[in-house]
């Protein structure tokens, strides 16, 4: 397995290089270093000298990919090389506005996790339990009603859940703060509403997906055998159907676990949670390339890690699967 993981990590290198190359190309197609400097320096009294100084301080006064120099400096004395190399050792450097990106990520990832982790765990649990419950009454009126309910939940926009939740629970009934965040244990009262909204808004899609997966399992011979042996319905559901139904669920679930700390743009913006959700978007708006490339790189790394974890988790839940 270790050889497999090492091989997958080796494959990741050209993928990350490609992602980085694409990020550079796309960003600099629409932004020139001069324009980036002017955005950072503001509109008032900005001289060309100040623009040149800004570019020189941040290394944007060099060619993008290829220098006219001879030898290896033709490739190394460029924006792409200088900005890319450090990323591979996770040295994100400073944002174009001067803040240390690594320190910012470290600080902002915890509120993101505080929101994303409970939403993820509670959401998965609720969806699985709800799906199993529906399976128990499959082909009944309850099953049909539950599916109609799920489709209705899926049809409502995520922003509507947020508006409705904030309006009723925070504004009308004064049960929780409408937005904000406090560190430590005080965070719970700010997280409860976004977590509930995150869970409820995901019930429709999640339950329908898991129901279809569990239905497939429920129709298999070993389930029929268990029932024929007189095993109780709860045992059938939780001891037989659930573990075997987990394999396809893992595919969609494990891959997102590492990305959880990247946060949720929508939830964090509306609920004022100081996470990483809006970090990339703010950076794009501010044309802060240092943050954009760091976050895209980190996102790619986490996705690759998620895929590797998914493969590993297969071996844990299904003894027939072996990594080679």
């Amino acid at each position, binding site marked *: 397995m270790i050889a497999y993981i090492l091989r997958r990590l080796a494959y990741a290198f050209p993928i990350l290089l490609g992602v980085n190359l694409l990020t550079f190309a796309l960003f600099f197609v629409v932004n020139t270093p001069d324009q980036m400097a002017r955005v950072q320096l503001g509109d008032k009294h900005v001289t060309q000298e100040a623009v040149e100084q800004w570019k020189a301080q941040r290394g944007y006064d060099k060619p993008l990919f290829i220098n006219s120099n001879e030898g290896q400096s033709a490739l190394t004395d460029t924006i792409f090389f200088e900005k890319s190399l450090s990323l591979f050792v996770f040295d994100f450097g400073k944002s174009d506005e001067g803040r240390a990106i690594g320190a910012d990520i470290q600080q902002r990832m915890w509120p993101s996790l505080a929101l994303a982790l409970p939403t993820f765990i509670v959401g998965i649990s609720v969806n699985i339990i709800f799906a199993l419950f529906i399976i128990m009454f499959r082909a009944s009126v309850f099953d049909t009603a539950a599916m109609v309910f799920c489709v209705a939940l899926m049809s409502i926009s995520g922003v509507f859940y947020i508006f409705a939740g904030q309006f009723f629970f925070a504004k009308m009934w004064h*049960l929780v703060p409408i937005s904000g965040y406090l560190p430590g244990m005080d965070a719970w009262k700010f997280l409860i509403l976004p977590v509930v909204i995150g869970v409820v808004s995901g019930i429709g899609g999640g339950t329908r997906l898991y129901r279809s997966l569990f239905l497939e399992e429920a129709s298999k011979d070993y389930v029929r055998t268990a029932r024929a042996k007189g095993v109780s319905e709860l045992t059938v559901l939780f001891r037989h159907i659930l573990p075997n139904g987990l394999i396809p669920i893992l595919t969609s679930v494990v891959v997102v676990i590492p990305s959880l700390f990247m946060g949720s743009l929508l939830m964090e913006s509306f609920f004022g949670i100081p996470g990483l959700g809006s970090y990339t978007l703010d950076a794009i708006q501010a044309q802060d390339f240092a943050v954009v490339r760091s976050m895209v790189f980190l996102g790619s790394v986490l996705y690759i890690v998620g895929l590797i974890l998914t493969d590993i988790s297969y071996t844990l839940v299904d003894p027939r699967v072996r990594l080679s």
Partner: protein
Amino acid sequence: MDCAVVKKTTTIFRQSLGQLTQRTEAVIRYAALPVILLSGASALLSGCGEAWNNPHPESEQGQNIIYSSFSERPKHLDPARSYSSDEGRFIDQIYDPPLAYHYLRRPYELIPNTLTKMPEIRYLAADGREVSDSDADVAFSVYQFELQPGIQYQPHPAFAVNEQGEYRYRFDNATDSAAYQSFDDFSETGSRELVAADYVYQIKRLADPTLLSPVRGLLSEYIVGMSEFSAAVTEQRKNLQAGEWLDLRALPFAGLEVQDDHHFSIRLKGKYPQFSYWLAFHFFAPMPWEADEFYHQPGFADRNIVLDWHPIGSGPFMMTRNDPNEVIILERNPNYRNDFYPQDGADGDREAGLLQAAGQRLPLLDKAVYRLEKEAIPLWTKFLQGYYDRSGISSDSFDQAVKISSDGIGLSDEMREKGVTLEKEVVLGTYYFGFNMLDPVLGDTGTEEEREKKRKLRQAIAIAYDQQEAINIFYNGRGEVAMGPVPPGIFGYQSGEEGINPSVFEWQQDKAVRRSLDDAKKLLIEAGYPQGRNAESGEPLVLNLDTTTGGGGSAIQNWMIKQFKKLGIQLNIRGTDYNRFKDKMSTGNAQMFQWGWLADYPDAENFLFLLYGPNGQVVSGGSGVNSTNYNNAEYNRLFESMKLMENSPERMEIIRRMLEIVQRDMPWASAWHPHSYVLNNHWVQNARAHGISKSILKYLDVDEQARAQAQNQWNQPVLWPLLLVALLLLVLAVPGVIAFRRRQQRRVITDQGVQG
């Protein structure tokens, strides 16, 4: 929740459950639960608890704190770099420039801040002899400053010393400083007296090219020796490692002189009357060299321990927490000097209760908490719930906050009932719809005859473009039509018949009335475009508006198209991103555009320079403020003489002539001055909007008892919805459980009987 009634209800509930027989337990439990919960809820609803939705920590309750918000995280808090009002609202409470604006007097008036008196200005000829300010030989102006003695800096680790008198926090390398990962890790602080050399040190920082101060270019034109100092710093830095501290004290600066700890002078080239206004900006706030050295230590920048994020000043407040993604906290500077609430103000201030705190020591607040609020709805809701003390008015909440009547804009009944007060102020700014005067279709180009025709075309458009309608529809009436660049409240502004723009308005029945469309159509014919078509070719006239807000289709853009359609002109809206837009502007490729300007200081020069030829975007390579590229020789000449004059009838006459030229040439189709509206909850005291200064926090106060009472009254939790949800779940669960049990108890009937 610890109410006695609730406890009693819970006990009864438990006892009741215990008495139930096992057989009927489930059924009765389901029936009794809602009843018992509802009785608990009614107990809670009777008001035994505190507000549950308070977003502020319990530890802050009862403290003299003002709560506010910010929507954009500040980029820079270094007084040499910061140049936006979003940043000024924080650092202007911390830094102490030599001059300040009087809080209440109008028109705006400069007063000494850390000085004993206003700076004395001497004028010198080139040979050094002293001359009068009106002398044509004036080659230099020397500003002489006298500092108040005994002013102390805020407590700060940069000043902390050990028992031997050595600085406590100085490190040779990043490893030594590794124990200090955040600013809070520095447990020891110190302070020292503010001295004249600190002001000089800050001006040297402004001249340092690596700091990218936005005013370096402008000030280099006036302060003697600034350009030379910049060159010397650049030379010195060549011998330093990246990030290494350069002690600016060692480098000479010809225009600056420190006489002693409390006296210094600044020498300017020629006369620059507006310099006094710059002295009230944070750019000129003092900076102790120890702070500059402290923040340049190895490893600090990688942990965001930099001056740009952790200000150090001698002002009324100090920043004790800076997490721009969540909260920024300012607390009273315990070392703040003797500073008192003003004894006098403008007319009506006493009646408005703004002088009740006269003579009290400042600051009146202990703390100010600013939370990041990106969305308008949570911000407005928290204001209504009493958790924010002050709020602006967004378009979404406008109807709820104010009502428009024949008397103007006033508070809505709901706001009046809550005791909310409204601050109104004309913003010292001008937003305009401009023409590119280099454009071949409508600019000031070609032969004299062609230029005259294009002028008439611009005048026709200006008449048709009904700015007042746009203000009413799209800005809820929060603004007024501008007759020229200078806004009300600034010397040079003229109201009434004298001030109207005669190319667009007529004075009828004591008010300015827009000229008729017939006048505009007549001008259009004279311009060579009868009914909006080229008189020679018959082709329709198509004009282009360059904008960063989409490519047409929005309500305001449709409205603009209609304005041009009144004359038969087709308006094409060219949406583009900000970068392309800036490129078009700096290369003169835009045709029409919208732009705005907010004043640096309350002087007509700061507005009239928006149309000064040498400030043109194209001629200055994109750095000029004259976005229309308007260039009129007579206007330029008048501007050059006006900008060096003190306010006087003679200056007023020159401004009037300049406005006449602009009103005739019409480089702007229209313009307007926005109005600022701020709501205050009833416990906020001494609130008065200031069009220029952001350093007003020290004058504000809150009645924390009234606030706590209102918060509690307005935010009692409503519990019946929770109970309803619980009941609903129960109603849904009961049939499910029954069905499940039935299923579990199902038996297969065979020939041998029932199989278990």
